[in-house]
Structures are given as C-alpha cells and as structure tokens.
C-alpha cells in the first residue's frame, strides 16, 4: 500500500508539497480529532439522514447540530437497502427517498453545509451508491463538496481496493469499521487501510437504541489502539448522554445516530438542538482532564 503522504492529490492546493495550501480533507478531519485529543476531550460525531425530514430540513438539522456542539457531522444519503440500520433510521431513509432525494441533492447539501459550518463532514454511505456512481467520481465529488471522508459500512478492507485508490486520489478519508467480532488480524487490516478515524462498532447489531452500552466496547477500542494512532470513535447503539459520556472516557469520539434522528422526527429542530447540546456537554466533560 503506497504511503498516503507521498502521492498526488487532485484537490486544488492540497498537494502535500505545497505548505501554503490547505490540508487535504482527510488531514482536516484527523487534525480536528487529534486537536480534541490533545485537549483531553472526546468528540461528538452526530449523524443525520440527508433529505429527512426534507432536504432543507436536513440542512437546517445538520447546522443546528454543529451549532449545538457536534464536532463532526455524519451525513447519510438515503439508500433503498440500509442493512445495518434499525427501524428508526430506516423510516427516516424511506421518507427521504419517498420525497425524491437524489445523490445530486445530497452532494448539493454537503456543499452548502461545509460552506457554512466549521465541523468536518463525513458521509455514511452504502457501497452500491458509491459503486454505481463510480468510486473515482464519487470521491472527487465529495472532496469538491468539502467533505472530509466517508464511512462505507458494507465495505470491508479486502473489497476496498478501488475505493481506497479513489479516496486517496481525492484526499478524503476512507473510514472503516472495527467490530467486536473482528480478529486481531482483521483489526490490523482495518487500521492499516483507514484514515480519518476508526469506527468501532459499539454493539453487535444494527443502529438503534439500547438500554445499556455493550460490555466489550472499551476492550474493542483498546484492541484497535494497539494497531493504530488514528483516532477511534465508537458508535452504533450509543443512545443517550450517559452512554455517550461513558464512551467518551475511553474513545476519541462518541457517534450518535438513532437518538438524534428520532428526536428530530419527534420534536423538530428545537428538540434536536436540545439533545445535541446535552450530548455534547456529556461528551466534552466526560474526562476529568476535560473542560
């Protein structure tokens, strides 16, 4: 695998030998998470479905989450077969598709969002949407829209050759998942292939609310750290402020999806803003060294 630092990136001004230029999108994401780490704080990574409740509404929702303290935004383009998502996100995705949300709309939303918020934006996108558009084109479009990376939850490293090449060329971070079931050999491969952060799957199962955090999540984060200096964020089943705070004590970030999507559906923007504030406070003050 070529050293990511030595190759040509197509993002204007992002060539590694151009010290005056802005960093590549992947570096911006890593830089943000590492800066928080140096401050002794964890990040709140906040997920939403692009096009839910509608396109404008989702743009407003992402902005509201950034204003309320989310450190990284995760934008999910709706997909017909979201197989790692539970009922809450499935319903939001179906609504977004029924409302006619297309990938061009999602890219437009990302473009507007990144122009107006400082938080790095990553996508959570199922691989067929990437494959069908063409990995190279999609990665370039993401970079052009100002996104820093993408989590592709159904793409393990061994199938990611084309996507890795495309995301490297565009300078965006390919984020991979680590699971409680992954062997150390697999964790090494996940850590080696990824950039941005490693997404540690907090619980067995699909996205959704859980009464308690899965027992093995701290151990998994530790096992991932043995293989990489990349930030490690944990998500899937992180359901409330207490759980997010618990995750923030050992991980570099807590990823929250279902709880936010559900709050947006039930209580609109004011409710979403309130929950994001609560989660952000919990995450940012979880460690004694934190603020």
């Amino acid at each position, binding site marked *: 695998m070529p050293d990511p630092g030595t190759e040509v990136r197509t993002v204007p001004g992002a060539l590694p030998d151009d010290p005056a230029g802005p960093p590549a999108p992947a570096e911006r994401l890593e830089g943000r998470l590492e800066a928080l780490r140096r401050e002794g704080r964890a990040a709140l990574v906040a997920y939403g479905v692009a096009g839910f409740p509608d396109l404008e509404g989702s743009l407003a929702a992402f902005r509201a989450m950034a204003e309320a303290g989310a450190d990284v935004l995760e934008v999910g383009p709706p*997909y*017909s*077969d*979201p*197989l*790692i998502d*539970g*009922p809450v996100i*499935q319903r939001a995705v*179906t609504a977004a*598709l029924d409302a006619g949300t*297309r*990938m061009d709309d999602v890219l437009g939303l990302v473009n507007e969002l990144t122009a107006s918020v400082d938080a790095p934006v990553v996508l959570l996108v199922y*691989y*067929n*949407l*990437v*494959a*069908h*558009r063409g990995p190279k084109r999609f990665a370039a479009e993401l970079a052009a829209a100002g996104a820093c990376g993408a989590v592709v*939850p*159904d*793409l*393990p490293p*061994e*199938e990611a050759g084309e996507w890795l090449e495309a995301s490297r060329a565009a300078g965006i971070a390919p984020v*991979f*998942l*680590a*699971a*409680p*079931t*992954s*062997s150390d050999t*697999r964790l090494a491969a*996940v850590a080696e292939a990824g950039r941005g952060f490693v997404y540690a*799957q907090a619980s*067995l*199962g*699909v996205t959704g609310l859980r009464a308690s955090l899965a027992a093995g999540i701290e151990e998994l984060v530790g096992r991932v750290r043995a293989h990489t200096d990349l930030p490690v964020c944990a998500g899937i089943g992180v359901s409330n402020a207490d759980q997010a705070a618990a995750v923030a004590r050992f991980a570099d970030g807590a990823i929250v999806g279902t709880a936010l999507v559900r709050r947006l559906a039930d209580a609109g923007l004011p409710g979403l803003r309130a929950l994001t504030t609560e989660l952000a406070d919990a995450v940012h003050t979880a460690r004694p060294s934190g603020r």
Partner: protein
Amino acid sequence: MSDRLVVEAPGPGAAEVAHRPDPLGHFGDWGGRFVPEVLMAALDQLTDAFEEAIADPSFGAELDALRRDYAGRPTPLFPARRLSEELGLRVWLKREDLLHTGAHKLNNSLGQHLLARRMGKPRVIAETGAGQHGVATATVAALLGQECVVYMGEEDTRRQHLNVVRMRLLGTEVRPVATGTATLKDAINEALRDWVESVGSTHYSIGSVVGPHPYPLMVREFQRVIGDEARAQFLEAEGRLPDLAVACVGGGSNAAGLFAAFVDDEPVRLVGVEAGGRGPQPGDHGASLGLGEAGVLHGARSYVLQDPDGQVLPTHSVSAGLDYPGVGPEHAFWKDAGRVTYESAPDHLALDGFRLLARTEGLLPALEPAHAIGWLAAAASDGRVAPGTRVVLNLSGRGDKDVETVTSLLVDDETPADPADA
C-alpha cells in the same frame, strides 16, 4: 462433490468455465464479500466449516443418507412424451417437484443445517420469497431439533399463505417484513440484520446462490446434486448428453445446480429464464441479468436492477420466488463468459407454461419453473429451439402453493369449469 472443491486453481484440462471462485469468493469481477465488518468473522468461520465438511467423508455420508432416506433422492428424470410431441422437441423433466417439501430448496437446507450443527450453532434463520426455502428450512430445523426463525415479506405472506401455515406447523416462527417493498429483498435485509446481532449463536441459511462468499459457492455445491444426477440419468437413458439444459432463475440456485454439471460440456447449450413480469419497464419485472447493471446487493457484486443513483428497484413477477432484483454472482460470470444465455418469460408465458404442463403431463409446476416451460414452448414455436432438440428442463418445484394465484389470474373463459356448476 469433494473432488471438485479441493481444486484450488483450474488444472490442466479444466480451463473451461466451471470453477471455484478465488479465496475471497470472486467469480471474475463478480461476487466477493460486501458486508459489515461484524459479519466477516462468521463468513470466515462458515467458509472453513464448509471446506472441512466437504473434505470429511462422514459429512458426505450423512448428507447422502438424508438425501436418500429423508428427502427422496435421486429424483427421477422423466421423459415428458406428450409435452415433447406438442412442442416438437424431446423434453426430459428433472423432477425436483418430487423432492420432500416440493422444491429443490431442501437440497440446500440439508447441507446448511448440518453445517450449522457442525459449527455448534443451535439457531438457524432464513429468508423466503415463495416460502419454499422457508418451508425447507423449517423442515430441516425440525428434523435436527434446531431453533428456527424465517423472515418473509408481508406481500409474500399473503400470496404464499399456505407456506406460512406449513412453516408454523413445523414449529418455525415466521416474521413478516413490512419494510421496503415487503418482498424477498427486504426479507434478506431483515435476516441480515438479525444475523448481525445474533451471529455468535445463529447460522444464516441463505436460500439461493446469492449473498457474500461462501454462500454462492456453497449453495451451488449443495444444489449440484440436481445436475450431477440429471447428467448421469440422461447419459444412461440416451447414451449421450442433452443439447439444451433449461432452468428458471430467481437468485439462481436451481439453475446453478443444474448448470454446474454441464458447464464443462461445451456442446450443451445452457439457458436460464428470468421473470419478464409485466414487461421491460423498471419495476415491472425481475430480469436482473437481462436488464440490470453491475452493482452490489446483499453482500456480492452482480447484476442488480437499480435506478441511475444505485437505488435498488422494486420488482414484479407473478411468482414470488423470481421476484428479486439481484442474482447469484456466478450467473453474472457465466453470462459475461458467454457460457449461459439468459432469457426472460413474462407472467403470461409462465401461466401458459403452467397450464401446458398440467394439461399434457398431469403435473402442476410451481410458477417459477413454469417460466422455463413457457419460454421453451415459445422458443420451440418460433425456432429459437430447433425441432427435435433434446432438452433437460429443471422442474424445480410443484405448483400446489400457486393454485390460488393461478386461479385468480386466469380470465373467465379459461377458468377451469366447476363440475358443480355444470
């Protein structure tokens, strides 16, 4: 079976088309493993268990005994004389409709449930479309004392209600799936979601040659008994190979099982028949190979019916078992290699095929293989299949489950007269 599987790379003389995929399950550009990381370990475990099992004579012996004593194998290869006369062909039917539970699906279930037991997994889950794979799953789970849950699209629970009842009687929990299009595709999504959560104790028994590696390879190997028997039976009866082998293609397991035995026999023409539905408009059919594009669905790269964004399209077929927007990756490989031709038969031809076989041979076919019969009849009448051609057609299942559907679709003058009204 095992002698074919231990071959790592096609050896000399085996340079034709049939082989095993690469270690990650790629048939050329197709197949592979596009699944969440959480499932990768289970797929590795399953691959190892499968490779060990087929190299273990005691596994083969147990499977063979169940095939013979429980399922009723070998199934006959029946020369269909009146059908042949009517079509001007020589047609033999591979009688998978006579297999216990009424379709070829049981071949796969026997293999997978024995593997589940070998892996120490007490719970088996499955998806089902027509309900035949669900019934086969429920049946073998009862036979081996395994806990069993079957996911089935809500739409399919209505049109295949009889099979829902059968599964429940066999002690299986049937969970209707209301998400998405509420058919087979969504039942697979839901089964995968269950598996992501339950992977430590649960085996997911996929019902066709679809899904991530090792499923396409494994299910083909469990189904190839169809083709191996049919080839030997034909040779014994005729002293030569058939000219043409035909099977319907939903996910593609009965076709893969038949074709696997013939794929190296270059002169044997192979035709897979997909669901033409109401016509070629998006959403009106299930012809993934004929009208789909490369994509990733349910863990493998293959031909997928999808819109310009890569959103998977709804499908339509009169038969629930062919109502699926994807297809097994090895079929994509065979199509590209030019080894198998994929055709389609619309709903009305399938109904024609259903009635033709009923009338000429006293056999009610399932609506899935009725597509193959309907296509063959049409192809014989317009010369795409020459007079006198020797054909093996896979009668993959019997039609009891479809009687209501067929009755409701026949227009008045075709409705069988009720003697009580006469």
